[in-house]
């Protein structure tokens, strides 16, 4: 029941000692170390699994040789904890796995099974969208036979890619606690000394020890964090380390990068140089396309449209191809590429018509992630877009989309710090933001309530900002999907039938308009000689964030929005209003709400107007219940009903 540390001959004398000490230390402890019956409650609270030991040893032997040893010992408390027990290791052609094994202990800490390298399954890694990746995975599926149990996962690999030193998370994710976490780096000489960037470490107690050839971080007894509604993503609050060396090697390339400026130069000189050539015919074609246009921005719009009309997105990632675009001439020939290839191609076309643009590396996703201002490394960023500087403004385009308007990037890459690659060096710049009332929706509607409780009417929806992003794809959808979309959007109206709709995508204004004619039986409920109906038929927002008995995390509204609604409601002739809700205004630091009702006797109609503004913001946990109260109240007001009574 003792595990083996996979040892390797050490390169330098100075390194032998710490490694040996470490071996001894764990050998002694291992004797009854992994019993799972008497764990501290600070670790089991909110946890389905407890990481007993998470230990990584990184040895940087030279600019082109790094050895990584990892040991992860996890006690799984119940079925839900199984997914936290890591049993897979990814690799590619430059990463050689020297050892990999799994050891299983029962609840008393007795070893019951040992899985060797040959028992692992080797498969190609699949990311779900790439045509090809040269990335593979060794994995083993362990079936637990009782709980709790302890799984120890050990591996060791060697790689020349010191440009990607593993980073470190003291906590591996939500609902997972850690008994002991240890991250150590040994470096052969001072030129290889790593730079470590600490994030969110104030939330844990840790120890950092440095010698002339090593840096070691240790932390103990870190409790699990539970994910809560509207809480920031794990990456934003997790205590973690980012690590790099300034002189590195990556996939056959050497680099010296101390700053974002240097990173920009490296990308420009090593990865992009010479890749923007195009053949004469294509250059003539795009020159022809833009002839007579003086304004650079207008030219850029033409070129972007040309790229959107003629190319498609295909991802192929091999070696340095994970960072380097395929050449513009190749994209031009096959008319497809990934984000890098298509951005570089568009940049080349723009250059051919005399328009400057910059290649921009970004961390894409609905969640906004900034590049770290004072820490430049290759690990940040997962996407490439392009920016066109014009009269002091940056216009951003995503060349992988065939449908986005020029200068519009939606919620995929908005409002975050990205690296732009200028010939004179890299620079961090913030992309276009869409916040608060930028994300605008207006619904204008008129509808009739009949004496049977039916509803019939028309609604016009206009959307802008990220609201546009949520709607404009309807234009590509077949009719049955569009109708399904309306049935879901208005799921507060049962028996909904859409008789007609029209859509208009104004790409120049980035505004999407929809006009929908619809009807439904039994919308209003009849109760004796009364009719009750919810006035806000078309924008009934019932969102109330979950209640927590004890909220732990701050909350964040990343973008916010503004809705305005104006409805005219025609009442059935033989009925008059018995009760009508009152107007109401709410003003909070999170946003505001306003609703008003006016009866117009001339034509027996009610005019309804409503607006809801929710502002972007980051708030401490103490304010969560106030925000919840605000949304509870707006949800309640959105549900307000008019009562009609039959004229006697």
């Amino acid at each position: 029941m003792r595990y083996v540390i996979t040892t390797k001959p050490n390169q330098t004398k100075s390194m032998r000692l710490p490694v040996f000490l470490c071996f001894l230390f764990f050998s002694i402890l291992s004797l009854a170390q992994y019993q799972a019956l008497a764990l501290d409650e600070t670790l089991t609270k909110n946890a389905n699994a407890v990481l007993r030991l998470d230990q990584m040893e990184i040895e940087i032997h030279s600019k082109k040789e790094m050895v990584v040893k990892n040991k992860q010992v996890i006690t799984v408390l119940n079925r839900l904890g199984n997914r936290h027990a890591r049993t897979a290791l990814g690799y590619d052609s430059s990463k050689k796995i020297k050892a990999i094994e799994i050891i299983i202990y029962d609840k008393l800490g007795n070893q019951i099974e040992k899985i060797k390298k040959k028992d692992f399954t080797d498969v190609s890694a699949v990311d779900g969208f790439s045509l090809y990746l040269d990335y593979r995975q060794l994995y083993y599926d362990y079936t637990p036979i009782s709980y709790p149990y302890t799984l120890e996962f050990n591996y060791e690999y060697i790689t020349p890619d010191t440009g990607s030193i593993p980073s470190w998370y003291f906590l591996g994710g939500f609902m997972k606690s850690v008994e002991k976490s240890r991250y150590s780096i040994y470096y052969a000489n001072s030129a290889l000394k790593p730079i470590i960037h600490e994030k969110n470490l104030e939330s844990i107690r840790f120890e950092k020890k440095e010698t002339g050839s090593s840096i070691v971080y240790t932390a103990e007894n870190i409790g699990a964090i539970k994910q809560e509604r509207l809480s920031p993503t794990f990456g934003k609050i997790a205590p973690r380390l980012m690590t790099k060396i300034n002189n590195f090697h990556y996939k056959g390339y050497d680099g010296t990068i101390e700053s974002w400026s240097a990173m920009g130069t490296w990308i420009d000189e090593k990865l992009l140089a010479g890749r923007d050539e195009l053949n004469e015919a294509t250059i003539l074609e795009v020159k022809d396309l833009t002839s007579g246009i003086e304004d650079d921005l207008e030219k850029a719009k033409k070129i972007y449209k040309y790229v959107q009309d003629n190319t498609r997105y295909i991802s192929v990632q091999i070696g340095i191809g994970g960072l380097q675009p395929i050449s513009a001439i190749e994209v031009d020939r096959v008319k497809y590429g990934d984000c890098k290839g298509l951005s570089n191609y568009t940049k080349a076309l723009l250059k051919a018509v005399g328009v400057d643009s910059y290649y921009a590396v970004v961390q894409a996703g609905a969640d906004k992630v900034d590049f770290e201002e004072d820490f430049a490394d290759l690990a940040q960023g997962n996407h490439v877009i392009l920016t066109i500087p014009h009269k002091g403004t940056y216009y951003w385009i995503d060349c992988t989309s065939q449908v986005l308007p020029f200068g519009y990037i939606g919620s995929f890459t908005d409002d975050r710090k990205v690296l732009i690659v200028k010939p004179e060096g890299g620079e961090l710049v913030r992309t276009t933001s869409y916040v608060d009332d930028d994300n605008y929706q207006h619904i204008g509607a008129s509808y009739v309530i009949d004496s049977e409780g039916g509803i019939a009417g028309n609604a016009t929806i206009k959307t802008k900002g990220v609201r546009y992003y949520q709607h404009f794809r309807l234009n590509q959808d077949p009719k049955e999907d569009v109708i399904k979309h309306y049935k879901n959007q208005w799921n507060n109206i049962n028996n909904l039938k859409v008789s007609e709709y029209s859509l208009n995508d104004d790409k120049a204004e980035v505004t999407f308009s929809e006009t929908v004619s619809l009807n439904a039986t039994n919308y209003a409920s009849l109760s004796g000689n009364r009719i009750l109906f919810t006035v806000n038929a078309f924008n009934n927002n019932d969102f109330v964030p979950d209640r927590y008995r004890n909220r732990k995390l701050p909350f964040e509204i990343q973008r916010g929005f503004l809705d305005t609604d104006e409805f005219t409601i025609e009442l059935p002739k033989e009925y008059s209003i018995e009760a009508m809700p009152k107007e109401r205004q709410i003003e909070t630091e999170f946003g505001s709400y306003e609703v008003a009702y006016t009866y117009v006797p001339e034509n027996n109609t009610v005019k309804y107007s409503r607006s809801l503004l929710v502002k972007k913001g980051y708030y401490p946990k103490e304010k969560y219940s106030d925000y919840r109260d605000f949304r509870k109240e707006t949800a309640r007001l959105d549900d307000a009903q008019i009562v009609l009574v039959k004229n006697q």
Partner: protein
Amino acid sequence: MIRLKITVFCLVFSATSFVLGQDFKFGKVSKEELTENVYPQDSSAVASVLYRHQSVRFSYTQGVGFKLLTDVHERVKIYSKDGFDYATVSQLLYKNGSDAESISGLKAYTYNLENGKIEKSKMEKSAVFKTSRSKYRNEEKFTLPNVKEGSVLEYHYQITSPFYSSVDEIDLQYDIPIKKLEIAVEIPEYFVFKPLMKGYLPISPKLGTKAGRINYTSKNRSNRYSAATNFDAQTIEYKINTTHYDIANVPALKEEPYVNDMDNYRSAVKYELQYIQFPQEARESYSTTWEDVIKKIYESDSFGGQLKSGRYFQEDLEKLMAATTTESELIAAIFLHVQGRMNWNSIYGYGVDKGVKTAYKERSGNIADINLILTSMLQEAGLNANPVLVSTRDHGVPMFPTREGFNYVVTAVELEGGTVLLDATNKYTKPNLLPTRALNWFGKMIKKDGTAKTLNLIPKKVSRESTNVSVVLKANGDIEGKARKSYTDYDSYAFRNRYAAADEEDYLEKLENRNNGMEISDYAIKNKKTVGKPVMESFTFNLESQANIIGDKMYFSPMFYMAMTENPFKLEDRNYPIDFTYPWQEKFVMNIKLPEGYQLTSKPENMNMALVNKMGSFKYQIVENGSGLQVMVDLKINEAVISANYYADLKELFKNVVEKQTEKLVLSKTSSDGTADSSGKSR
């Protein structure tokens, strides 16, 4: 050296099978095809298959044996950007040890119309990628160049397979429409396959025969006294059975909600090997009838062979037998023993993975490992227990006798009172309650003598969720109350699988938020893990604003937060059966105490409706009692699967459920003399 070479003649189709004005020879893409901007019968199609020809045939090489060759020639039209995905083609290739399928002769072109001229772009080798996906699968993928809206793509390749006994299922319907599909299957008389059709397309294949010929050179001695060797050219003639499927205008298969598995409805043809018979050799039989399939499965080492010895569990079994007296106690004890001891490794199969002995020792295994241990123990204990072959819900319905039609096994015990079904691979099953994954039409029970019996697996017993609530409605519209809930059978099975391992506080938070943020206290749960009994929960709750107060009236649904507010059936019509997995009932009894100073003005009418053939029913009843009301609501679906013919009725039933459950009751403030100030009750 003997060298056998088979000569294969290319198929020639009669000209009548061509759609007018189109030429399906490779490379003969027409302007008409390029200018077509929408699929005529379905404007929502993002792409279509203009033509696909797929031929399957055999070839023979001495020393290697038979190989299976599949030629694919496809022409695809791209209508819109959403159709670009169809410009990337993936072909999965099976492998086993050193045997592997391979692709050859791949060529692919994209055709575009540029200024009225057809332009052709060739796919380069750099656009082809080969990956090893798993131990048994390679994948070859390629993507065509220069694809735009309007492009026509064309490619051809051949798959060579050493696995000649297994012809892959041939799909006759895709997610995009097909204009013309030609399938040719040519099989030498030595191999007898049975074609099995599924799906809703009417298909009539043309059968025929043609001559096949093997020319080979053999070495022999002309007479026994001569040392000289002669080389003779020889010929073997044999018959090839041909089948042609010639289909036009196949609609796209479109997803519908609440369908068990769309692939069950996809039209396809499957070739199942029945037997192989070479001249002067014994017939090697594969499956033909259910009996043959079952016999073959039963005789295999990984199935029937696993039931032979019970030595490995003998000691445990003796203890179980000693501790029980009746037959039913013994069944329960053996079932609980296997269920408790064994752990499923998430691998399916009616054949064992590790073998029962190893699995028993290691306490984990696949479906067959576990349920064959169970069967074997029951048999050893003298009970009439047998394995039952099953196809899981996501594996499709086994409509034809094939070995691949099954992927799962459970156990049946025949008793005087009837048959008991058992599955020990889930911790929360019980006798006659199989995991939901196994509830797929029927299973085939295999007896020791190799005969089989069909067992219906669809549950008949109704699973119940009952809720009893006593509520006090306050004058401000808030409610407080006590609730008791119980879940039986599959409702308790589902509850336990989801929550039995969860942290209670975490579960309560979810429960609270699912019920509009109510506050729960005094929570208690009974039988959380006692599988034989219903799960019972009780709690006290508070919930804000459950009634609208407008003027001097209060309006509220007497179901409060429990009302079904949305009809799950939204589409106008439907083609495929509605699969509820098991029959179910939701029953509510609510006692509501009304606030002081208010009086009932009007209440929803009672309702009682039922579907034909007792497939389902809905009852709604309100009774006044003293200072309050009693509301009884009962929704019942008695059939696990309801045919699409009844979709409109079912939708109507749920429409009424939603309307009734959300209908409001009206209270009025009583004036100081105790009478309501609004005029009387209505209706």
